[in-house]
């Protein structure tokens, strides 16, 4: 089963290589991975989606936790979470079909962020499924380029998740 896991880590040189190296070496099946700043200076926040059985999901957390620079880990799969991904999609567009594309963009609450004589760049933020579905429709017009960020996740509600925790693996 797929799990969404958040890991907080010190923003130190080599920390990304350590995490990536660990995923590779231990043969974990990582489907998506994003990393960026957290609310705490010096602490980065990584969201990743990993597929595996219970043993593998426990292992991925326990092994990550052994990395000296990893300060906290949380499996949010069974929590109420907001999960979002951002995509930029460049599609072929001319006078014959531009209106049709704009209509789709409206329906999906996406945005057009660049217009040229024969192309458009569309930006969409949303769940993976919503993006997948827009991509499918846009592919009829010819997708010239695409970039997707991978998913980021945040648990709903007022409880904050301390980026440094002392109880080990959740």
């Amino acid at each position, binding site marked *: 089963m797929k799990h969404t896991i958040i890991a907080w*880590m*010190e923003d130190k*040189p*080599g920390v990304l*290589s*350590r995490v990536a*190296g*660990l995923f590779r*070496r231990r043969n974990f099946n990582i489907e998506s991975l994003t990393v960026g700043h957290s609310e705490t200076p010096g602490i980065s926040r990584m969201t990743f989606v990993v597929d595996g059985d219970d*043993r593998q999901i*426990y*292992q991925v957390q*326990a*092994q990550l*936790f*052994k*990395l*000296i*620079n*990893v*300060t*906290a880990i949380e499996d949010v799969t069974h929590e109420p979470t907001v999960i979002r991904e951002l995509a930029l999609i460049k599609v072929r567009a001319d006078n014959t079909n531009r209106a049709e594309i704009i209509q789709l963009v409206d329906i999906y609450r996406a945005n057009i962020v660049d217009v040229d004589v024969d192309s458009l760049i569309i930006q969409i933020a949303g769940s993976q499924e919503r993006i997948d579905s827009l991509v499918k429709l846009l592919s009829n017009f010819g997708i010239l380029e695409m970039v997707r960020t991978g998913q980021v996740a945040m648990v709903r509600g007022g409880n904050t998740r301390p980026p*440094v925790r*002392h109880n*080990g*693996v959740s």
Partner: protein
Amino acid sequence: MAEKKSGAQIVWESLLREGVEVVFGLPGGATLPIYDALAKYEYPIRHVLVTHEQGAAHMADGYGRATGRVGVCMATSGPGATNLTTGLATAYMDSSPVVAITGQVPTSLLGRDGFQEADIHGVTMTITKHNYLVTDVRALAQVIKEAFYIARTGRPGPVLIDICKDVQQAETEYVYPDEVNLPGYRPTLTAADPDAISRAAHLLNLAERPIILAGHGVIIANAEDELIHLAEKAHIPVATSLLGIGAIPQTHPLSIGWGGMHGEAFTNYALQESDVMLVVGARLDDRLTGAFSTFAPKARIIHLDLDPAELGKNLRIDIPLVGDAKLTLRELIPLVEPNQHTSWMEQIAEWKRDTDRRDLLAQETDDLVPPFIVRQLWHLTDGGNCIVVTDVGQHQMWEAQYFLHVKRRGLFTSGGLGTMGFALPAAIGVQLGRPNETVWVIAGDGGFQMTMGELSTVAKEGLPLKIAIFNNGYLGMVRQWQDVFYNKRYASTALYNPDFVKIADAYGIPATRVTDRAGVATAIRQAQAHNGPFLIDFRVEPFTNVYPMVAPGKSNADMIRRPLPAEVEEE
């Protein structure tokens, strides 16, 4: 304001603050400032010059295992640093406390593929517990403090510090920090959860065929007394892993040997048939368990380890206990009931008698087989009153089977990585850490040649190592596998050996050769009587195999056994 010091001075002063007495290393361009500071300021640290940096890493590892304190090795950038890697990986697999210091090209040349640049920080990421690249002298003292702390606390392991050459030369105000700042590092320093401990006790109290499997973790945690106390109180037999040997004296009535691919057959039967198994500080790796799904099929498993990642890594665990072995066993002991498992012990004794009937030494032959030498050595050291360091191969297994270890921290061997070439350099570290004890090296003719250049270190440092080479003319363990599984096609396993007696002689080390059983005791006595290093070249029977043997991917229940003498005659 604190005094200004160079990075090179900071290295030595910090090592002194960490209580370091000896450093194993070999200098080069990128460590010249560090070495110069040692000469200039005459720091009271013994620097042992090695022949090859792999040796330096094994020495630091041996020192770490033998003393429980951090062993330190040093190498220059590029090839010096890459030469350390085998030793670091060895120390990592066997959880040994080591700090490795390497020189690196100056910060201005980093990433430009300059002379002798190798990205040792990247290379060693997955074979160290942690590592650092230091590009600013102001960070150096803090990094050294953290490196030592990480290496020795929790589950010990090697930590590498790569220091750019200009950092060694730059100056800063030197204050050795009192504290580490490691928000993500929280080693387990306490006993396991009390509820889980009481559930474990309950399971043990109900068991009919309980067994304790003790690993290296018991020794690292100095939990031997607690282990024995628990075993005696609840009358539970104690098996060990290869690295757990010595956790209980092997002459203790509850000691039932060590298990695994070439472990004792009766031990494997006991593990397989147990109904409750308490694993303490062992990783349950495949060499011990055989095919994971077939290991101890009837047992409920309680697994105590301070590393949460070991619990459930390879086997399904019924009661995981995350805790320090010593503290957790202390909590467990009052909860287990005094017990007698007489019929279970009798069953194990029966398996042991069967093992004894198949014993190589019970067979009528005059061949100089390695077990004979191991037994003789045991007798001539007053029943194992010495430290043994073994290399990797058949001789390693025979030593483990035939030498009854009674001494704590008395056997050192490369278990996890199985590194040929480990024994001689590791023994140098062991001897320096435990100067008042007799250290015997047992190595194969193949592995010995991988690091025998360190004979120079032995001679130079005047270390009284007693070195036994089990010279069978083959990469014996591989030859054995070719014998059993590849129809005796001995592909590239026959060795072309030098005359080891002459080799020793060339270093000024006295040596002798033994070709038959009659010469064994005399040679061992001669080695012991000599006040200094001594080497014995034992020309052993080449085609003897180690039994039992578990084929890869097979169950420990399906061991290949040495035939009974009667069966041999029938053939």
